[in-house]
């Protein structure tokens, strides 16, 4: 009798341990932007010196909380890697996060706004901007936590000319 009790207990415990371990091998989706998240560039004003002004629009179906912005300074670069975020008061580490009086203030669908970049801030932008790349980001709730999510499908690239 004792033998059966012990055996079944051990089998149950080992089953629970193996289950918990194997559960880590079950693929589960990483949080990502919903399809339909989009940002568009309506206008660019660039004086080819110190000021870049962008008119942006949330033309998607979901709020966005900010965007990544990088630039190139010559036509040979396929990828934009020069960070433009330090030149905007709301920017840091490559990303511009929309700020309101109570913290992050997402832009709702259809909203249009203008962001200005002062390129003379030290260290000033190396050379002249050739193109810019913009990618939207969102904060998404997951398990009662807010997660920072980049929206790779919303990435746009635009060449910049002096105006």
């Amino acid at each position, binding site marked *: 009798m004792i033998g059966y009790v012990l*055996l079944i207990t051990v089998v149950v415990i080992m089953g629970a341990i193996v289950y918990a371990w194997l559960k880590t091998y079950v693929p589960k989706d990483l949080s*990502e932007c919903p399809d339909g998240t989009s940002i568009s560039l309506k206008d660019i004003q660039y004086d080819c010196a110190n000021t870049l002004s962008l008119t942006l629009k949330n033309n998607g179906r979901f709020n966005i909380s900010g965007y990544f912005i990088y630039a190139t300074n010559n036509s040979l670069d396929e990828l934009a890697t020069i960070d433009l975020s330090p030149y905007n008061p709301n920017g840091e580490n490559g990303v511009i996060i929309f700020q309101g009086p109570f913290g992050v203030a997402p832009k709702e669908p259809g909203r249009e706004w203008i962001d200005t970049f002062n390129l003379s801030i030290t260290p000033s932008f190396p050379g002249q901007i050739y193109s810019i790349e913009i990618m939207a980001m969102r904060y998404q709730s997951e398990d009662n936590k807010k997660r920072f999510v980049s929206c790779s499908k919303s990435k746009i690239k635009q060449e910049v000319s002096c105006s």
Partner: protein
Amino acid sequence: MKKNKKRGISPVIATVLLVAMVVVIGLIIFLWFRGFVEEEGMKFGKNIRLVCEDVDFDASYSQGNLKIVNNGNVPIFRMKIKIFSEAGYETKDIKDFSDWPARGLNSGGSFSGNIGGYLSGKEKIILIPVLIGTSGKGEKVFKCEEQYGYEIDI
């Protein structure tokens, strides 16, 4: 004729001993086997090997400049560079010949570095992401499979 007076252990004790031995041997085998698996570590609540599928980055190489942009939501801790030449190939860590960020490329992050001096005369490179996860022993670095790499002809 002599009578054998030796007596065996009771069936209860024999059963208990048998069960105890099976349990101990089972535990030893389980812990030994788990040691192999724990080497890989965990990230975002799942085995880090599975997280490699979610890595999403772009890369380009021109005039000695290697540029990498992390488009996805998985931070790239390091990058292994498999460098192919006529003689074969060698694998190096990007940190060995560039100022790769200490904590890697976060979501949306970018990297640009001149590694032309190391790649002259080479044929192609494959950039293989390296992730950092957690295990029972703390942080654990995991190199993704080559299939998740990014191939660039030089």
